[in-house]
């Protein structure tokens, strides 16, 4: 874990309302893994007060990319960070995806901004495993396919790709999935993850999921981000420290 002031190299609007912040952070790019996150202090001022957690979107040499949309004051400030300014980042935090194992095909399942961790994930698996990316969103603007491979798209309103949610799209492709030795890697809204859990349990697919929860510190001291464990009902796990990536069997979603 480091706290560093990283120079901002560029802020890019890659798609409708979706931004990429490119920063220079060699201390972090040399060690961060797909699925880990950073807690970003967007301003030195007392409002917004808390850091904002972002999963690492991509890494290219010393360059680190964060993906976000403008949700409020914090992300608004981030979207307008001028080139040459610095941002204070704390990380890498949490546990990333476990890319190793004897599966042959990684199946990415993402909804909306849940696509954020997967460009780096795709880069790291390149040449090692096959990848199929199932990417969903409410409308065509919410289907984010930036730097993903072999994409199958779904939108709730049918404005892009399959009409329906991404788990329904998985059902449509069940024969394909069953014909391969797969492991599922997912990130997205809670409703999607719930449906995905049922789907994976029913079909006996191994699945890792990146979870989220409002948090303050990002490294275990505030205890602000509990998630229910399926193993031990006596205590919560923490999204920041025990996660954010969990096996989908191990947490109550």
């Amino acid at each position, binding site marked *: 874990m480091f706290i560093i002031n990283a120079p901002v190299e560029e802020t890019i609007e890659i798609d409708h309302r979706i931004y990429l912040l490119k920063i220079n952070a060699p201390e972090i790019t040399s060690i961060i893994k797909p699925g880990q996150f950073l807690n970003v202090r967007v301003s030195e001022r007392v409002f917004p007060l808390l850091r904002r957690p972002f999963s690492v979107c991509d890494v290219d040499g010393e360059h680190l990319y964060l993906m976000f949309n403008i949700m409020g004051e914090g992300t608004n400030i981030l979207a307008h960070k001028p080139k040459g300014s610095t941002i204070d980042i704390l990380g890498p935090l949490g546990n990333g995806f476990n890319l190793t194992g004897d599966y042959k095909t990684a199946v990415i399942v993402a909804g909306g901004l849940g696509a954020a961790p997967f460009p780096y994930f795709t880069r790291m698996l390149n040449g090692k495993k096959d990848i199929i990316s199932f990417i969903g969103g409410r409308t065509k603007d919410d289907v984010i396919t930036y730097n993903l491979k072999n994409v199958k798209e779904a939108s709730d309103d049918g404005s892009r790709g399959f009409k329906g949610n991404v788990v329904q799209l998985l059902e449509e492709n069940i024969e394909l999935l069953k014909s391969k030795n797969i492991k599922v890697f997912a990130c997205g809204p809670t409703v999607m993850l719930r449906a995905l859990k049922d789907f994976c349990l029913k079909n006996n697919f191994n699945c890792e999921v990146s979870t989220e929860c409002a948090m303050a510190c990002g490294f275990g001291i*505030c205890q*602000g981000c509990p998630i229910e464990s399926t193993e031990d009902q006596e205590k919560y796990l923490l999204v920041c420290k025990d996660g954010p990536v969990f096996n989908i069997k191990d947490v109550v979603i």
Partner: protein
Amino acid sequence: MNIDLSVKIGSLALRNPIMLASGTVGYGNEISEFTDLNKLGGIVTKSLSLKPRKGNPPQRIAETPAGMLNAIGLANVGVEVFLKEKIPFLKKFDVPLICNIAASTIDEYIECTRILTTEETIKAFEINISCPNVREGGLIFGNDLNAVAKITDKVRATTGKPIVIKLSPNVSYIAAFAKAAKDNGADAVSAINTLLGTAFNINTRKPKIHNITGGLSGPAIKPVALAKVLEISREVDIPIIGIGGIMDWKDVIEFMIAGSSAVQIGTLNFIDPSAPGKIVQQLEEYCEKMSIEKISSLTASYIL
């Protein structure tokens, strides 16, 4: 000039006035990666209860202007696991360890203190009578003068180590509670715990945190905290540990002028866990520049 940063909280000697507040440093291990604990005045553990507590369901946290609401619900490992699994790590440091105790009944306060007081690493106790986020104990005790008096008296009878009573700001006259603590044998009071607050999502009309209400902390509460510290300082002769929205060394000086002998840093640890060590250094620089030989001379140095 040789600057003396040391302060005393009753019989408890600290190398400087910077303590880390309960609930913002866990049991020390995570924050030790960012701040050298040996350079601090003291650290206060997460509230400990007799049995482990699971805490509240999410969401536990919501940001507010210049502050945050939290309703963690005293999630903690309980005194036995604390002694077995957390103390060995904390033993490695040369920094006074203050155990914060939270309980639902007076007997539970006594039992926790009795078990913990035998551990030599623990130098003092902070008694949490003011957590706004649990149904029993917590605020009910913190709002009841007789309960505060009785808890202080019983804990006093259980340990020879210094006791600090952590006071609630959610009362109209905090000095009365400080006096009840003092009259029943407390060595000091810490002020303030969080202020009761809430926030709503205007789209769903639901509270932003599961517990409905939470404790407000951060720079938003600093003026309230300073006023409470000043009130105690003017009316009760007892050492005060000032808490509430400290973000930098200037805030520390302000709390000391208002009557604090030492301070605790809380919410800032979540934002910049390396800040406490830097603040110690900056206090020394300030004293040097202002020709203040003993930082303790700042305590209650207000000119009204």
